[in-house]
């Protein structure tokens, strides 16, 4: 299990590859990558603020819960903070399980909890102005599934 919170970009392909390598007991690997989306075509920069200390604690708790609940072989969370442009990868999670159902469910669980329970806040900067991204009701509602 690994949790990394960093400002620097990470190498998604490399991380996915090394996460998936050398496993003879886990048949299923799922990864999710979140990418800065330029919905309106005017995004200059996405800025992500976080709460150093609490962020790591919250992510480690979420990952440990997923590992236990689905008997995962491994779990990975990488999340960036700071400023990034459209198309850049914000974060990724990965899960390894014996069967695909567990790997998928655990990855969705990680994402649902990370979205609403890890202290990150997104601010979108355009040429004209800047605004904090509002939390979506369906993200909070997604937690009811678990």
């Amino acid at each position: 299990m690994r949790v990394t919170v960093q400002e620097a970009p990470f190498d998604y392909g490399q991380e996915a590859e090394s996460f998936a390598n050398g496993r003879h007991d886990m048949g299923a690997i799922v990864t999710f990558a979140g990418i800065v989306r330029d919905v309106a075509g005017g995004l200059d920069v996405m800025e992500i603020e976080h709460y150093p200390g609490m962020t790591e604690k919250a992510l480690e708790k979420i990952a440990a819960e997923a590992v236990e609940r689905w008997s995962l072989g491994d779990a990975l969370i990488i999340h960036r903070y700071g400023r990034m442009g459209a198309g850049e990868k914000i974060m990724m999670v990965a899960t390894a399980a014996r069967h695909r159902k567990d790997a998928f469910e655990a990855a969705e669980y990680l994402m649902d909890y990370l979205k609403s329970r890890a202290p990150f806040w997104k601010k979108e900067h355009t040429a004209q102005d800047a605004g904090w991204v509002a939390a979506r009701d369906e993200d909070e509602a997604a937690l009811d599934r678990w």
Partner: protein
Amino acid sequence: MNVLYFAWVRERIGLPKEKIETNATTVNELIAELRGREERYEAAFADLSALRVAIDQELSDFDSPLEGAQEVAFFPPMTGG
């Protein structure tokens, strides 16, 4: 006690962190105290449904006790991922 602010709460109050001497026994009491201070605190804490609180880096409720707390943080609902 260290009080931390994040995202628009930080922007509205105008600082990321401050040390506060208080006798407040719950988060709600601390908020009442802060709101009484200045307009910018009143503005930040006007709508509690738009706020979240963490005590010593654990998400908590507004009626949680502050006894022994070193660090209280206020921020909007989180938007990571």
